[in-house]
């Protein structure tokens, strides 16, 4: 079977049937994305490795619970990763240095190569577009958004951390999300009925 040519959803169906080659292919497609997100949240590489391992182990165990009408596979994996990584941080009971929570630099969209799987090329281009959109936000909005998304901070915690009024933090996050919604409207992974 030509696993690189299969869709993510098909790979999950095969994983649910205990096909390890399908899990390998899914790992090859998304291990960098998952690991990068894990490191951004937990900060240290060792914990990020364990989170990454935990994510794909869960995929192996629960592939049959994936519902394609709720979110794409990439989104599903990202949500699992963020939740597990934030749990690691919360169990430590120690807040990370807010300055360690940051966005990726803007990189030019990659040029697809002949031998690069289509899914990998699409992922790389999507990443480039999202990074560029975030860099269009004012620095203070980027900062608040990073604390909320990567750090799992609440508004009050962000306000305390950055020494801003609560209302200011709320406005910045709300404005950031509205602008991103406008900039990324063609990228959004929405359920079919939305």
């Amino acid at each position: 079977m030509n696993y690189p040519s299969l869709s993510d959803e098909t790979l999950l169906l095969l994983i649910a049937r205990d096909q390890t080659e399908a899990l390998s292919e899914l790992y090859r497609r998304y291990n960098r994305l998952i690991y990068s997100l894990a490191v951004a949240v937990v900060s240290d590489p060792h914990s990020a490795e364990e989170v990454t391992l935990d994510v794909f182990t869960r995929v192996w165990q629960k592939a049959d619970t994936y519902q394609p009408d709720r979110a794409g596979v990439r989104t599903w994996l990202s949500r699992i990763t963020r939740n597990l990584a934030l749990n690691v941080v919360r169990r430590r009971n120690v807040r990370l240095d807010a300055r360690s929570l940051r966005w990726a630099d803007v990189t030019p969209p990659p040029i697809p190569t002949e031998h690069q799987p289509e899914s990998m090329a699409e992922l790389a281009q999507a990443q480039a577009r999202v990074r560029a959109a975030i860099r269009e936000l004012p620095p203070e909005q980027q900062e608040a958004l990073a604390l909320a998304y990567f750090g799992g901070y609440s508004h009050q915690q962000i306000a305390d951390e950055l020494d801003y009024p609560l209302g200011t933090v709320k406005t910045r996050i709300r404005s950031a999300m509205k602008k991103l919604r406008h900039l990324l409207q063609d990228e959004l992974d929405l359920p079919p009925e939305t």
Partner: protein
Amino acid sequence: MLNHLETSENLPEYALGSLNDDLAVAVSEHVAGCAACRSELLLWQAVADQLALAAPPGDPPPALEQRLMRQIAPPIRAAAPKRSDWLAWLRRTSPLWAAAAMLLLAVLGVNNLNLRQQVLEHQQHTAPMAAIPMYGASAEDPASGVVVVSADGEYGTLVVQHLPELPDHQVYQLWLIENGQRTNGGTFKVDEHGYTALEIESPQDLVLYDAFGVTVEPAGGSPGPTGPKVLGSP
């Protein structure tokens, strides 16, 4: 309770998970009963989901894939030696084996009786307990648990992890399910790590139940499940 406009204004932050707890609860209560807000929330969740793509890039160590494959695969038994290798070796050492075999039979004959008695005693004292896993509502949900039942079914303990702490007016409640009927198994709170162990209250042997579930209920518990299910057994 929040009105529609107040809820709508807070949906972006709710999708991010950055609302303070009391406001998040108020938003969730409104969303549960408002189709327009549920639809709008899906849009904001889709925006929040995109943020994962903007994490600074990193590469896991190459060996991580091998660790994953070892973790999910059953253990591989060591390859048995080839039959031809064994036969050649036996032919070379056969005189020595004859003498050793006689001695071994004499020793084993004495020990065998003692060993058999030990095995029988061990089986009586260490009958296996049953462990029934419990999972969160979805694969993204890190919460999980296990119900451990004694061999005779008379005693059981629920152990949970990664469940969110509840406000004072709520508790988690365990349900023992038989033929669709739910029986209270006890209520509990979790610590700051989302962990606790509950000694299960049951009117009958636990092995007689088909399944187990945990829901969120008002403080003091409920006669039957009224709140959202957070854990369930397969």
